[in-house]
């Protein structure tokens, strides 16, 4: 089955309906045995130093995975650097399929975008809706992992992160992924619930440094809400697929995202929020809005390269936890 690279979550039902395999390039990049080398490879090719490491990593990932010849480019609603990334990939001979989330969440525009993508892949609404049903079953396993995280205190922040973030492409094999999630659920339910921890929310793009979750747990705190990762699981009670991608908060304006963050912070009884901002990302600007609009203590972390959690970030985390106690 042919593979299609995706740079962020897109209506993956369309890809599965066409019999293609979606590959979330972020996941391939960050799980590489040496992701930093991929970043450096892009820099050698001419990518600027002061640019998001995710973009550079994705660029090299695509070039090194020669079985991926088609990329869906989210030209609106994700990262503005994607435009130039796609242009450099086009230069390397790849096919680029553009997809834009309308900034104002206009359902007609969103439907049109989905239909354009469907026509590229030659699939009908019936086929796409069939895939929604198939994937929602897989997603329901991950929704349960999330519920066990915050409601039953049985799941750690990293597992919550990894299962949810994997819902962008279901690792290319939805049923296999669902089975893994089932095994994980069974194991999680047999653990005693965790107690006495600080409850944290993690908002912003997924971290480039995975160590964060373990570090917090060593210090008596746990992430019980991963904002963007949760969005990747489409946890919305709707049968309408256009509405599903309209309720998906990540690609739209910050104020719509904040409504959801506030609701979840309340429901999950968070003590504080970590706002992760990737170095050189336009979303760093939104930190000022987040700080003004959230009533909870917020720690803003900036991550640059896929390396270890640096000493300064550790210091800031320690102080933040100390402050919350």
């Amino acid at each position, binding site marked *: 089955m042919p593979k299609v690279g995706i740079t962020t979550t897109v209506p993956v039902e369309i890809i599965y309906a066409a019999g293609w395999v979606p590959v979330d390039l972020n996941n391939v990049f960050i799980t590489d045995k040496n992701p930093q080398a991929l970043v450096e490879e892009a820099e050698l090719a001419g990518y600027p130093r002061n640019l998001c490491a995710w973009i550079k990593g994705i660029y090299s990932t695509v070039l090194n995975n020669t079985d991926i010849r088609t990329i869906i480019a989210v030209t609106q609603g994700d990262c503005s650097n994607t435009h130039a990334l796609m242009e450099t990939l086009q230069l390397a001979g790849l096919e680029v399929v553009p997809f834009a989330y309308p900034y104002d969440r206009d359902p007609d525009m969103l439907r049109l975008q989905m239909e354009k993508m469907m026509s590229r892949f030659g699939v009908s609404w019936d086929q796409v809706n069939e895939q929604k049903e198939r994937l929602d079953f897989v997603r329901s396993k991950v929704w349960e992992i999330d519920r066990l995280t915050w409601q039953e205190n049985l799941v750690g922040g990293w597992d919550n992160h990894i299962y949810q973030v994997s819902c962008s492409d279901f690792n290319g094999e939805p049923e296999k992924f669902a089975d893994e999630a089932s095994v994980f659920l069974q194991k999680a339910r047999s653990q005693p619930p965790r107690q006495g921890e600080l409850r944290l929310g993690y908002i912003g793009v997924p971290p480039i440094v995975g160590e964060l979750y373990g570090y917090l747990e060593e210090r008596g705190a746990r992430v019980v809400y991963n904002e963007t990762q949760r969005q990747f699981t489409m946890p919305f009670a709707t049968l309408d697929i256009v509405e599903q991608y309209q309720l998906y908060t990540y690609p739209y304006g910050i104020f719509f995202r904040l409504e959801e963050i506030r609701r979840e912070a309340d429901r999950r009884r968070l003590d504080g929020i970590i706002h992760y901002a990737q170095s050189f990302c336009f979303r760093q600007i939104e930190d000022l809005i987040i700080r003004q609009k959230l009533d909870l203590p917020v720690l803003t972390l900036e991550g640059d390269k896929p390396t270890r959690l640096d000493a300064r970030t550790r210091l800031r985390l320690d102080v933040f936890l100390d*402050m919350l106690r």
Partner: protein
Amino acid sequence: MFIGLDLGSRSVKLALLEDDLLVRLDKFDTMRFYREHGKREDGRLVIDAGGLALSGEKPTITATGYGRQAVNVKGARIIPEIKAHVLGAAYLTGLSDFTLLDLGGQDSKVALVRQGRMIDFLTNDKCAASTGRYLENMAAALNISLEELSRHRRDPAELTSTCAVFGESELIGFVVDGYSTASLAAGVNYSIFKRIKPMLVKLSSEIIVFTGGVAHNGALVKIIREELGMQVIVPEHPQYAGAVGCCVDAAASRSSKK
């Protein structure tokens, strides 16, 4: 008897508190301190801080600072750096509502303190261009002492560089253009102010307690006062706030256990 150790990037500070009185303050060069008082054990640097204390009662040692995770201080409690600085600043000034500004060897920290508790904080993380190291570099580039650098704030040259090291070559360019040393020194002091201003404005109070080695820079103190209209208090021994805070924390935790 409580010993506080602040393991800074440029110097290690020691404070000794006995019966709620500071009886000793000491400063060591960081590199020398680790070389002379430390030894490697299991891949970590272990410091026998007991050897530094006065004879007599076995002291409680509390350590903080940038080095606190890499360095294992034998028999010491470890507390986060900003907490130590807040406690130290509160002890040294007797205040409980203020904004702490701590500019150390390579760190810039701003913390908002209400009723003795820190409720928010900001730090530099990518660059040390508002710290003691920057001042040392710039004074060396101007070929003047830190004391001389600290005297100037009038007619500042407009420095644009965002980097502590590139700043030096920019200064040299200004010298060639005929700027006076006084104006360049003022420019250096203003450039520090500009870098910390956003943090101070975000976490503002009527009173700023200014600690860390850079608090000795009188011109900067006056610039903050004039530009922001806030009261700026520099406690005696501003460099020792972290070490003092360690002692204060140890004393508080002992009395809460009683």
